[in-house]
């Protein structure tokens, strides 16, 4: 095996790259991968996922197989959740922490069999996750295999995704009928006779399915899903719409809301860490001790108008100023105090108003002070709102 440190990911392309080129996609670098950012209109792609369906290539994601008699116990030790408690075919969102309680990555773990788990990590954290898992094996009887290069991953998301998945030609032997497949469960199937894993999972806030397929069959699966989706208005969708969709759904993105400097509880992910499970796990002592007093916490913010707070913008308060005061005149402005930082923000395509997630000093939240986002020199009043910003109607 090549030393991970010696393998920087640059200009990697997905097995579906040519399809995207032919489809007129524009590309962006994402963790060293050239991935579609949009196929023309990110707004149209966003709305399609909310109203009909979109198909995403997310083959940059990393797939890691954990296999062996101790697989469940090993993951209970290596990850923050109690993975041994999930049933075969069930999926679970989890975190890989470092000993200091910081987040190395957020993951989705599928249990494929009693002794076999499939760990899906972010592209940019592939080697960090593989290295951390390998290091934590110790005396556990388990094998950790990085299968990322063997797999492509296609997501079909949106209210019509189930009908599209059911109609796709070539998908057979579906163990659990898709009508009965529950959210965060998976089923095995075949595509043209090849193994296919279908999860009812996603990152858009809509119903949806994710298809794990061997890389050399991905283009044919994409075509089968696209053909089936034509009658429903399925459109190919890129990373730009994926980002606004997940933001509306209040889902964190590693590198924005999550990082090694943030504790799960700060990100609102305290529930993902299972402190009741038996035995030690990496990060347990640090999580039990908690982050230092006054650590910033993740909140949802909305603002009026159309100008969105963006990642990196400051969240400020203006001590002594009443929230009803007009915007202070330049030169007479009371000194503002920075109390936080925006981690993601956009004009919400679904809601029509700016939304943002931000880490904010809890004392500023408790005091009820009016918060503002400093949008390139203009203070825009922000309201703290519960996440998610958008929740689909469950039929």
């Amino acid at each position, binding site marked *: 095996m090549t030393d991970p440190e010696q393998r920087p990911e640059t200009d990697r392309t997905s097995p579906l790259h040519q399809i995207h080129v032919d489809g007129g996609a524009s590309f962006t670098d994402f963790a060293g991968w050239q991935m579609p950012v949009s196929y023309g209109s990110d*707004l149209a792609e966003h709305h399609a996922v909310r109203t009909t369906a979109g198909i995403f290539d997310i083959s940059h994601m990393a797939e890691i197989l954990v296999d062996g008699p101790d697989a469940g116990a090993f993951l209970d030790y290596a990850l923050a959740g109690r993975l041994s408690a999930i049933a075969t075919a069930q999926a679970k969102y989890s975190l890989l922490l470092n000993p200091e309680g910081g987040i190395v990555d957020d993951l989705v773990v599928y249990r494929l069999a009693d002794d076999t788990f499939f760990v899906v990590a972010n592209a940019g954290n592939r080697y960090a996750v593989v290295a951390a898992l390998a290091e934590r094996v110790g005396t556990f009887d388990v094998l950790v295999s990085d299968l990322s290069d063997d797999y492509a991953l296609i997501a079909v998301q949106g209210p019509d995704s189930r009908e599209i998945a059911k109609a796709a030609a070539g998908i057979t032997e579906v163990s659990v009928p898709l009508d009965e497949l529950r959210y965060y469960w998976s089923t095995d199937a075949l595509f043209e006779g090849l193994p296919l894993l279908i999860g009812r999972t996603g990152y858009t806030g809509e119903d949806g399915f994710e298809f794990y397929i061997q890389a050399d069959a991905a283009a044919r699966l994409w075509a089968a899903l696209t053909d089936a989706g034509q009658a429903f208005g399925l459109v190919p969708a890129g990373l730009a719409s994926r*980002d*606004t969709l997940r933001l509306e759904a209040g889902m964190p993105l590693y590198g924005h809301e999550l990082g090694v400097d943030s504790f799960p509880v700060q990100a609102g992910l305290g529930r993902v860490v299972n402190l009741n499970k038996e035995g030690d796990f990496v990060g347990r002592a640090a999580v039990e001790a908690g982050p230092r007093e006054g650590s910033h916490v993740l909140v949802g913010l909305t603002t009026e108008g159309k100008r*969105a707070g963006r990642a990196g913008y400051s969240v400020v308060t203006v001590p002594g100023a009443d929230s009803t005061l007009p915007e202070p005149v330049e030169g007479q402005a009371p000194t503002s105090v920075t109390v936080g930082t925006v981690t993601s923000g*956009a004009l919400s395509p679904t809601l029509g108003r700016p939304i943002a997630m931000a880490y904010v000093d809890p004392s500023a939240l408790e005091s009820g002070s009016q918060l503002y986002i400093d949008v390139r020199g203009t203070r825009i009043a922000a309201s703290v709102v519960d996440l998610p910003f958008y929740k689909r109607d469950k039929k």
Partner: protein
Amino acid sequence: MTDQTSLKYTAEHEWVLVEGETATVGITAYAADKLGDVVYVDLPKAGAVVSGGAIVGEIESTKSVGELFAPLDGTIVESNADVDADPSLVNSDPFGAGWLIKVNFTALPTLLSFDEYSALIAE
């Protein structure tokens, strides 16, 4: 349809149409594609005095913010109210209905030709 070969360009991806003492300014299709769907524009008001190279407006897409630079010294004659109402014009017709500002300029600086700009974005 505007003849793109007759326009002047800046390295900041603006196009400039010179007619008498008035310059009409917009962003190029290349810039609009890079930005993604434009959802908000903040343009200078008529009467505002601008100087070449200064930031005079903003063009926001869902994913990022682009700055509008004044390509030349002068006074804003008009900003495009249609784009203000429907920012998607910047994507659908960047060289036409998606124009942004008209500037009554005092001096015409050296701008890029179509060929020079084409070479720039081909890099």
